[in-house]
């Protein structure tokens, strides 16, 4: 059974790599380009894990994270937050709001895959 992963990022330049990599690893992948689309797709696509960018239009990654965690139907969903800001305070906020992991750009793709697999195991 292949896991479903939702990529939530508005930057096509990172989405292209993530999408290619995850598909290659055998995951089922969907892409959302803003915060609202994430919440909408979460119901439809029923992902096992979300790669959530913090800086997104309409709704920020933090808001989306809160929204997902408030939804009882998504209780099993794993959330990995991606951010371009390296501040510790932000990491703390993401984890406090319910993210399972927090990854700062630039990151190693290998580490990311390892991280995803361990969360889904």
């Amino acid at each position, binding site marked *: 059974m292949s896991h479903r992963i939702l990529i939530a990022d508005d930057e096509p330049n990172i989405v292209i*790599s993530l999408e290619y990599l995850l598909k290659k690893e055998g995951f089922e992948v969907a892409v959302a380009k803003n915060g609202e689309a994430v919440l909408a797709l979460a119901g439809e696509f029923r992902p096992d894990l979300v790669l959530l960018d913090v800086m997104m239009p309409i709704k920020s990654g933090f808001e989306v994270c809160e929204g997902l965690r408030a939804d009882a139907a998504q209780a099993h969903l794993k959330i990995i937050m991606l951010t371009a800001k390296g501040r510790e305070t932000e990491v703390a906020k993401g984890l406090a709001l319910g993210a399972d992991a927090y990854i700062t*750009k630039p990151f190693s793709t290998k580490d990311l895959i390892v991280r995803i697999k361990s969360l889904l195991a």
Partner: protein
Amino acid sequence: MKAKPRFILAAGVLGLLMTGPFLLTALLLFADAKEAERAAFAEFLIPRLPLGGLMTFMGFVGGLILLRSLFRQYVHGLLRMAETMRLMLGANRNFRVTPEGPPEVRELARAVNALAQQRDKLLDDVEGQIDRAKATVEEEKNRLAALMSELALGVIVCNLDGRVLLYNSRARLQFKALAQGPTSMSGGALIGLGRSIFSILERGQITHSLDNIQQRLRKGSAEPTANFITTTRGGQLLRAQMAPVLRTGASGPATATVDGLPPTPPPGEGGDEVGGQAAPAQEKVLDNPFGAELQVTGYVLTIENITRNFEREAERDQALQTLTDGNRAALGNIRAAVETLLDSPEMGTDIRGRFMRVIADEVAAMSGKLEATMNRFADSLKTRWPLEDVLAIDILAAAARRIEEKLKLPIKHEEQDASLWMRVDSFSLIQAITFLAARLQDHYEIRELRLRLATEGSMVFVDLIWSGTTVSSETLYTWELEPMNVGAETSPLTLRDVIDRHGAEIWYQRDKAAHNAFFRIVLPAAATPDAPVVDLAQHLHSDSRPEYYDFDLFAARDAAGAGVDPERKLTELSYSVFDTETTGLLPAEGDEIIQMGAVRVVNNRLLRQEIFDQLVDPGIPLKPEGIPIHGITEAMVNGQPRLDAVLPAFHEFCAETVLVAHNAAFDLRFFQLKEDSLGVRFTQPVLDTLLLSAVIHPNQDSHRLESIAERLGINVIGRHTALGDAFVTGEVFLKMIPLLADMGIVTLRQALEASQKTYFARVNY
């Protein structure tokens, strides 16, 4: 005085002695005589009675005159002598009694003088020993103070009440620069020994920082300091660091806490503290983990005015921010793409192309961003250059060394004016000279460079001269805009940056006669630094200790509430000793103040640096007869502030001190006439050295300032300027305090009451 009734008594006794025996004899004879004898006696005597009476009276008058003269010479003379002897006892050791009056009194005077001589010798011996011991301690203190004064940072030391115990000249300058207002010493930025720091910095801020420090101390922090940034009344931005002054006490906490406090708290203590800020009013004793008590007795503030730097620093921070966080996303995209490419050899050409484009785009964007940030960074880097005054030949010598070392290019020095100073950032200027030399060597293969130094007006010319090859001005223009890279050394700055930063210019010039060409850098000259200028050279005693610190104030405690407590000792109070010069002697008839001078007395010291010295435009013509006295001319008062501006500033200067003046009533009358219209009121207690002199020496004829100064052994310099007189008055006052104490006058209230009782107090102006 007790001499007067004694004189009357003596006169009575003389009268009785002269008439008594005669009357008694007559009475006895009369009683013994027969009736007829009595009648004959009366008949003979009565017509002759006036003659006898007259003779007796004349004798009596003669006796009186003799008695009075004796009284004068012996009683009064001795009384006066006793007064002057007391002077030798206290205020003026070098004073000697002038032998005058009858020989016996003169002999006594000589004996007293001899005795005094002997005592002086003994005292000098003892004092010499004490002085030598003291000098060592004093030297240490002075060395510390001197070190502080040399710091480029403003340093202020306060006790727990916020009273300033030490400040360095940098701090004084910083706050002087903050001062605004019509006079040189007003504007709410007064700094002085014993003054409250809260007039400059916010009380809440200080209390808060102190609390932080105490918490840190309790936790045993190695660095119990606090930093804060605050704005002053004038809107300036100050960065301050606070560090505690600690005393490790051997005594228990209970005794240490009351240490330095008066045994009984002054009335009204507690409730009078402003807005619950009582926290720092008592010394804090803290137990640190090592068992010893750390007692905070005060704090050191290092203060830096960062108003100007602040914007630039913010910009620099932003630049750094853009360089780091701003590149994370792009770098993340590139890294992900590259790693995907590497890990996916199976990828189709089409999709591989898309990945490549991602990388190309991101790299291009990053480069652009980096470029932009670097430009901004270089901009803010420029403003960091602190320019300093340096000797021009030193710069040239350093540049020559550098060029010879880096470029192996021989340098020769042409005529160089060794006395020239310029204001530069030496590092970047040397870099610029080296850069030019490198370019000349690289592009024009010059074999030798000569350096010349000249001056014209307020400009310094630095010439880089070479022979042979000519360069075009255009070449220099290009070089100006290139980063100054020499070999492996790179710089974000261009030659133009360096030139602009110095307010300098550079051009290319040819000297056809000498067959050479040169680049000329023109820099603004700096004034040749003199020996440090001392404000009041004429008043300074070389042997006096620096007056910008007084660590004895550590122990000083504020009385509860503001204002001056009349129950405090004269030795504990702070004073503003002042004098005014006026157009004339009649304030009610339109005479005006033309100069005000004042000096502070804190902890029994005259603080010659903490002064108020201001000419005042009276708004009326000066009287020609006054000019020789005060030496102030129309030209001097023209353009000076009016009293409307000066009096409030003076009022601020005198805050929380006792006013002292010679013949204070005169000066105060001038103030009073203005108080209503200006809304400033001098409500503090006033001590008058004229009245105090009359209290101390009621039998002296003269209580003029000169006479008192002479009596008390004070050298009078610079009299008849307001400040000069204030200095003399201040010294006189300081000498009077122990004399008053000898008479049992110790507190301010006692001094005020004694002044009021003197004869002179009844003379009202």
